[in-house]
């Protein structure tokens, strides 16, 4: 073995050690932060549990009786809302429609309108 080869051997061994040490100290902190995408974060808000007046699509309103399709269409068309009670201020509601809305106020929630939803705001295209 020549002197040159042995020199290279030590250099490469040193590099391996350096990368290993850097990897050991540098690696764990990057993994420590829980990765979460924006949609999961949105689903963790009331949007994921209740009928979100600013973000739930028309089809979602079929979960509770009396809302789909007429009121669902009106609610989506008149969004956004500042608070849940604003839904009663939709113009030209009939008395019966107001009653249905009042009975469902507990099922409603309001979060920030989410641009990311795009057309899913109207129809998410999930059919049977």
């Amino acid at each position, binding site marked *: 073995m020549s002197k040159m080869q042995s020199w290279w051997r030590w250099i490469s061994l040193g590099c391996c050690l350096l990368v290993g040490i850097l990897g050991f100290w540098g690696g764990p902190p990057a993994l420590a932060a829980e990765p979460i995408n924006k949609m999961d974060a949105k689903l963790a808000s009331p949007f994921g549990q209740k009928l979100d007046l600013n973000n739930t699509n028309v*089809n979602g309103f*079929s*979960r*509770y*009786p*009396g*809302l*789909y*399709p*007429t*009121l669902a269409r009106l609610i989506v068309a008149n969004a956004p809302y500042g608070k849940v009670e604003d839904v009663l201020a939709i113009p030209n509601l009939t008395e*019966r*429609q107001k009653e*249905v809305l009042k009975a469902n106020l507990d099922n409603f929630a309001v979060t920030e309108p989410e641009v990311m939803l795009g057309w899913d705001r109207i129809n998410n295209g999930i*059919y*049977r």
Partner: protein
Amino acid sequence: MIGKLIGPVLCLGIWLWTLLATPAQAITLDDATRTVALNDQGETVTLTLREAERGKQLFNAKCGTCHVGGITKTNPVVGLDPESLALATPPRNTVEALVDYMKNPTTYDGLQEIAELHPSLARTDIYPKMRDLTEDDLYAIAGHILIQPKIRGIQWGGGKIYY
């Protein structure tokens, strides 16, 4: 001797097996399956086997074009599955409510009459295939709609992924 007999004996055995096995394997609707909700007061009614058969034939002939397999082709959000029927306004998960619908259809929230859009006895002038339906026929069709989920489970109204 045994070699000569084994053929005829096998044939006889297979013939006897088909004779015994066929009636037992035929699908029969028992009374419990044919018992469905009559109205929202909790009353139930048991369809006869003949009514159930007639309901199936009529449903496929009159409703099956759009409601094949219990779905709604023109709006897959609302099907004929028990959950969708129960969440309608008024609830449509009973024989009487379904018969009422076939006479005077309304939107899912019950706010609008849609006799011009959904075939019914109200507008046989624009939906002539509804003309020959009698009260007994409507009863049989409603019964069929409520019996199917008991036999087919999620396949009824579950959509094409469950076919």
